Every structure is written in structure tokens, then in C-alpha cells.
């Protein structure tokens, strides 16, 4: 089987993004000054701002933190000595712990400039709303704990989940259905992992198993993901499994988790994803075939059941100008943005 080169695809994506940004930049002249108001649902309760991960840590390359209210608010000001030059924006104000629904309302009311959009909120956006999506960089997967020893149970659940229905309805077709760890845009072979549901086979696998063995607790800490877990439980019920959704991931037989793809290098991304999911480190692969084999080996045994690859999606106020401030990997690049009302 001949696979497409993933890095090549990534480069193409980046080039397209840059082209789009240049087109947008040509529309208006940049202005200095102004404050970009951003709302996010996450809440960082740490004494200091986060320095790793995605989002706020990305601002450190062009902005400096000037105010930190743990869990509530952060203010970044333009770094006059930024490597790429001073950002157009004077300030970026970030409000934390805002629900997706509140963020969407605030954007609608003009109280903020940049918000995260979930599937439901994305559907409700008015026509013409500027939306910045990343590539599908978040892997949603089921991860089994050690207590579920029978592989037939795990495989039955993998076969029972109707990914397409969840993708169409609950995810509003955001991202893509997948049974692979790496997204199709990054690996090029994700489609080779079968993602179709087969309830009949799932029922066959668990037929004859005692009821206690067929009872699984599914931990979901993110309330936004709970409807997905409930649907998985319903699909599992059709297959003869008794899945109960619990709000605590710790101690549950299985967990519904999200893992972020951290690299444009497929091999590195696979390794970091495997590490995040508690899978063994895959062998270093220098070809797509080897990478496919390594990923296939990781997914054997159904300890991890990949479900979807989801993008980060941001709604943007019309005041915000400049090329998309979100990279394909979901990184914040606000240094080239400006807002109307800044210094001319």
C-alpha cells in the first residue's frame, strides 16, 4: 500500500494558511495599539501563568504577562523586544473559566473579540461570522484501565460505538471520524483503521460472558463530553454491554479522554500521543509503512479506542483584523493581529 507523505501535507497546509493570511492582510492596513479580549473555558488555578501546552503559553513569544489572577484573568502586554518585532496589539486580556455558551453570547454582544466555539455554538453562529479553525489536532479516545482484562469486551465496545452518528449530531460534523491515533492529515493512513460500527459482531463477542464482566464504568471529567459518553453507553447497551457514565475518571474502568497532537512530525506525534495515552513507546519509524505498523501495534488489544480527531475552533469579532491568529496545530499567533480602534 502506497501512503502519501504526511510532512508534505503539513507543509502544504501551512503554505495555504500563510496565503490566506496574506490575502486578509491586504484587506486593511495594520494599526498599532488596542486590546484583544479573549475568553476561554479552561481555568488555570496555578500561582503563575502556564508556560507549556497550548493557548496562553504561546503568547510568551511576543507578549509578557503583566497581570495574573489565577483562574480568572490574565493580561499580557506587547513585548517591545519580541524576536519578530513588536506586536501590533498593545494588550491581550484573557478571561478564564467562561462556558462555551457564555463565550458565544459575549461575542455576539461585542463584549469580547475571540472565543472558543463548541459544536453547538458553531451551529448557532450568524452567517458571515469569522471562524478560525485549526486542523483536527485533538484526539478523542476511549482508554481502558487495567481492570478490563478481557480483550473481547474492549473490542466489543470499539465495534459498538457508532462514530458517524456522534460526529454528525453531537459534534456537528466538526473534525473527522477516526479509529487511528494520528489524524489523516498528519499520517495519511488513518483511513486504513476501520471505524464503522458493527453491533452484531460486538454482541457475538460478549455473548456468554457473565453480566459482571459486561459492566463497565466510563469516566468523563469534561461535562461537554458527557453527551458523547452517554451515546457510547447507549451503543454499548445495544451490544450487550452495560456501560455506566461516571463523572470521575479515576477508578473508572474506562475513560473518555482528549489528547492533543503535539508535533507536525508524525513519528514524534505518535510517540507523544502514545505516551499521553499510557501506551508503550512505539519504535522509531522512518517510513510511513513503519509508522503505520507501529500505530497498528499500539492499537492491538483495544486498550485505546480512537474515536475522533477534533479541531480547535474560534469565533472572531469583526473588529479583529489580520491573518488567522490560530495555526493548524491550534497555536495562538496574536502578534500580527490588530483591532479596530487601535492607534492609526
Amino acid at each position, binding site marked *: 500500500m502506497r501512503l502519501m507523505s504526511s510532512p508534505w501535507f503539513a507543509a502544504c497546509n501551512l503554505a495555504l494558511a500563510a496565503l490566506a493570511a496574506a490575502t486578509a492582510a491586504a484587506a486593511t492596513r495594520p494599526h498599532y495599539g488596542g486590546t484583544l479580549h479573549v475568553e476561554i473555558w479552561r481555568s488555570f488555578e496555578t500561582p503563575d501563568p502556564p508556560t507549556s501546552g497550548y493557548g496562553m503559553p504561546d503568547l510568551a513569544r511576543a507578549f509578557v504577562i503583566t497581570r495574573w489572577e489565577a483562574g480568572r484573568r490574565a493580561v499580557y502586554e506587547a513585548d517591545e523586544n519580541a524576536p519578530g518585532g513588536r506586536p501590533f496589539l498593545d494588550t491581550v486580556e484573557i478571561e478564564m473559566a467562561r462556558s462555551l455558551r457564555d463565550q458565544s453570547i459575549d461575542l455576539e454582544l461585542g463584549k469580547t473579540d475571540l472565543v472558543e466555539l463548541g459544536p453547538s455554538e458553531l451551529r448557532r453562529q450568524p452567517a458571515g461570522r469569522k471562524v478560525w479553525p485549526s486542523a483536527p489536532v485533538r484526539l478523542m479516545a476511549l482508554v481502558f484501565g487495567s481492570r478490563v482484562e478481557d480483550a473481547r469486551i474492549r473490542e466489543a465496545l470499539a465495534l459498538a460505538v457508532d462514530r458517524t452518528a456522534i460526529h454528525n449530531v*453531537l459534534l*456537528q460534523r466538526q473534525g473527522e471520524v477516526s479509529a487511528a491515533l494520528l489524524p489523516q492529515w498528519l499520517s495519511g493512513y488513518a483511513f486504513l483503521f476501520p471505524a464503522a460500527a458493527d453491533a452484531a459482531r460486538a454482541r457475538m463477542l460478549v455473548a456468554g460472558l457473565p453480566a459482571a464482566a459486561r459492566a463497565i464504568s466510563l469516566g468523563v471529567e469534561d461535562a461537554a463530553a458527557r*453527551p458523547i459518553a452517554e451515546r457510547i453507553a447507549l451503543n454499548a447497551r445495544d451490544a450487550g454491554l452495560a456501560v455506566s457514565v461516571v463523572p470521575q475518571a479515576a477508578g473508572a474502568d474506562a475513560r473518555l479522554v482528549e489528547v492533543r497532537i503535539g508535533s507536525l512530525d508524525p513519528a514524534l506525534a505518535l510517540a507523544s500521543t502514545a505516551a499521553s495515552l499510557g501506551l508503550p513507546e512505539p519504535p522509531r519509524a522512518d517510513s510511513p509503512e513503519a509508522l503505520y505498523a507501529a500505530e497498528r501495534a499500539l492499537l492491538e488489544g483495544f486498550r485505546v479506542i480512537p474515536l475522533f480527531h477534533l479541531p480547535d475552533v474560534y469565533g472572531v469579532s469583526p473588529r479583529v483584523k489580520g491573518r488567522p491568529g490560530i495555526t493548524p496545530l491550534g497555536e495562538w499567533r496574536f502578534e500580527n493581529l490588530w483591532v479596530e480602534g487601535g492607534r492609526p
Partner: protein
Amino acid sequence: MTFRTRLLLIFTVAVVASVALVEWLVADSTRQAFERMETQRVNGLVAQFRKEFAQRGQEIVRAVNGIAASEAAVNIAISADYSPYYNDAASLAAAHGLGLLELVAGDGTIVSSAEWPARFGYKEDWLAERADWESPGAFLKREELPDGVTVSLVAVSTARAGDRKLYVAGGQQLDRDFLSSLVLPEGMRVLLYRNLEARFSPAELVGGQAEDLPRVQPLIEEVQQRKREIGRTLGSGSSAETFHALPLMGYQNDLLGVLLIASSRRELVELESVLRRTGMGVAAAGILLGIALSWWATARVTRPVRRLAESAARVATGDWGATVESSSADEIGQLARAFNRMTRELVAQRERLVQAERVAAWRELARRLAHELKNPLFPLQITVENMQRARERHPEQFDEVFREGAATLLAELANLKQIVARFSDFAKMPAPQMQEVSFNELVNDTLKLFEPQLAQARVRANAALDPRLRPVQADPEQMTGVLRNLILNAIDAMPEGGTLTVRTSALEGGVRLEVSDTGQGLTPEESRRLFTPYYTTKTHGTGLGLAIVQSVVSDHHGRISVESSPGKGTTFRIELG
């Protein structure tokens, strides 16, 4: 038991029986009347509950029709992509006050489910099986929910947009919340059994308490079998309840549940209890009043009878002049007057009898005296005549004749003296001087005195004395005389010899003394007349011995009797004490 007591008892029994019967009749008729009222009340309450239930169904129908007619439903119906609406059922259900709501596409695919949001995309084929969902109104349906199966009251309506349609199926779960939301009359409660298992399952009883289970289970099982309404009173006392068990049939005519409408009988039982207590109080008062009136009435009725009885008792004690005052003209008055006539007649007859007896006694005494005196007088006359003849004809023999005649005269005069002494003794009969007497000793001493006579008469004496016998109050001399008299009679009765038995035995505070012989015995006529004065079966007796014995025994407040039959001997029995 006196006549008055007996009459009072009869009156009391009659009063108690009458009052009890009346009380029972009144209580029973009252209870039946209250039962009828209670039945009407319960039926009214059940009808009210049915109305409330039907009203709740109409509310659901209105809500579902409202949703189906809404712009939102029409928008969903005409939409080519249902996925944006998967969450709309929850908000529509909340806005219309429904607990359950499913929006289902024309092909039976669930677009959105309020009660189970995850079921989008699943099929509800039963909706497509019927063309017209408006006509049935609200109906019961078995409902699957994430946490199990339940029964719901649902209605279905259809939103149409051209050739596209959207089923709107909404309603309420029949659960504890539903039951508690129903407006129930005072004293009524509702339990629901969801018929979701093949057999009776306690977990499916909603709205009840643990103690209800054993009571209602048979009722539920009966409804499960017969599939029709059943009414029954369960429990007892003030905790009793009248249950109406209504089968809840689903739209496919399957039994989905049993609704138990329970109406407390506490008020009825308490009312009946108050009435019963009041009735019993009134009955008790009536009985007491009846007894009091009976007491008065019996006293009034029995007073003449009591007077009559007292007069009769006086007559019995010898007061033959007793009379009864009679003023009434009824039977008691007639009886009193008859009694008075009777006593007057008795007094007159007694006087006549006394006079006749007195004459007879004198005649008898004269006869006895003549008889007793005639025997010694005749030798006296012969002797005196011999002496006169000897003086006149044989003077030389006169002295000898005089000596013999004087001896004979003296002997006969002694005999006459003895006869006179006996009559004198009978006439005297002094009062007994009471003291403690040991009859066993008295018997032994007396028998010892008679030993020579007994030996001469060839009579064997046998004393059978009771060692338990205690001393008895008696006159020892008179009782010795009594015993001597009886022993002499016994010896006389056995001229050919025999056995004399003297037996004592202890009585309650007294003594029984028996003197038996083995002589010829007495005829019944002789036995009857034996104690009559001057009656004797012997040729030489005065007939006063046993009369004196009877007199002594009578003076000791004792009783003497004789038991004899010809050829079998005679036994005299004296009982004192």
C-alpha cells in the same frame, strides 16, 4: 331465691335482651348507612381522581399539540438535516412542562429526545404504525429510559410541512413525582404498580410504603389476572383503607400498570366507634334504668305475695289467726282474700278439732284408766269379798285369809300406785338440763346395768360405737331413760332371745343413736302409731314409754324414727344436734 329476686332476674334479662337487640339493630342499620355513605364518598373521590387523571392527559395532549404546531417543530420537519436539532426536545419539553418529549422524523428516526438525548438516530417504529395519532388522546405507554423502564402517559401529535412530517411524542412519567402532583382529596392516596416484570416486583410499587406491600400484592395480582377494576377494603381498625385497583391499559391493550386509589376509613371507623360507644352508653343507661324500674315494679308486685308468704309462715308457726291485707281486685287480691278465708276456716276447724281431740283424749284417758285400774280393782274386790265371806262363814280361818288378803291388797295397791306414778311422770316431763354428754359412755354404762336382764332373756348385746363421736349437749338422765326404754322394748321384742345392737355415729355437730333388735318386727300400721300415747303392742304396757321417749327427743330438738318390717327386727334411730 325469692320470688321477687326471680322476678327481678326475669325483668333484668328481658330488659338487657331488649336493649341489646335494639342497640344492635340501631348500630347495624347505622353502620350500613355509613357504609353506603362511605361507598358513595369513595366512588366520588375515585371519579374525581379519574377526572384529574383525564385532565392531566388533556394537558399533555394540549402541550404536545402546541409543540407540534410551533414554528420550531415545523422548521425541524422541513429541515433536510436533523442533526442541529438533536438537543431541541429538552428545551421544548421544559417550555411546555413535559417530562418526556421525543421529536421523531417521518420515517421513525428520533431527531431529539428530552428524556434520553443519546437516542438520536434510533428508531421509534411504533409511531409509523398508526396514521392518526390525534384521536386516541393521551395514552399509557411502556417507556425505556437510561435508568430503566417505566410507564408514561403520553400523547402524539404530528407537525406537517408539505409532504414532510415530524412526530411529537410527549408526556409524563407515571412516577412518584407524577403521583404527588395530582390534586388528591383529603384522606386519599394513590399508589402505582408498574407492570413491567413478568411477576410481582416490589420495586415497581410507586408511592407506597414498605408496609403496603404485603397488603396490596394480592390485589395487584388479582388485577393482573382479571384485568378489571377491583375494590376491596384492606387492613383493620382505623388503619383500614378502601382500595380501588384500576388496571392501566396501554395503547395496545396491554396491562402496563395498576393504579391503587386508597381512601382511608379512619373517619368512618372513628365515627362508628363514637356511635358504638354512645350506643353502648345509652344501652347501659337504659339497662340500669330498666333494672331500677324492675326493682320498683317487682317490689310493688311482690309486696302482697310477700305478705301472703309471711302470713302463711305465721300460720305454719301456729299463728292461725294471721291474715293478709288486701285492697286490690286482681288475682293477688283474690288470693289474699282466699287466704284470709282459709285461715278463718282453719282457726274454726282447729278449735273444733281441739275440742274433739280433747274429748277423745279424755275418753282415751278414761278408757286407759278404766282398763288399768280395772285389773287391780278386780283382785281387790275378790280379796275383800273373800275376807268378808271368811269372817261370816269361816271366822276361824279369817286371820289366815286376812293375812293373805292384806298381802294381796297391798300388792294390788302397789300396782295401782305404780300406774298412777307412770301417769304422773308422763304429765310432769321436766325440761332437760343440758350438759355435755358422751353417748359412747352413756351406752356402755346403760348396757352394763342391763347385763343380768339381757343374760336372763338370752339376748346378746352388741355396742357399735363411733370413736370419733364427740360430747353432745343433752340431759344425761333423760337420755339414759330414753336408752333404757328402747333397750327394754328391744328385750321385750325378743322373747326367744336374739341380738341387741346399740350403734352410735357422729353427725355434723351431733350424734346418731340406733337401737336394733332381731325380734318379730312391726307392721307399717304399728310403726305409724308407735309413738301415740297409750298405744302399745304389749299386753302389760301403758303405751306411754315411746311417747315419753319421743317427748324427750323433741325437747332436745332431735328426731326419732323407726325402721321395721315384719320378721326382720326393728331399729329405732335418734338424731340430735
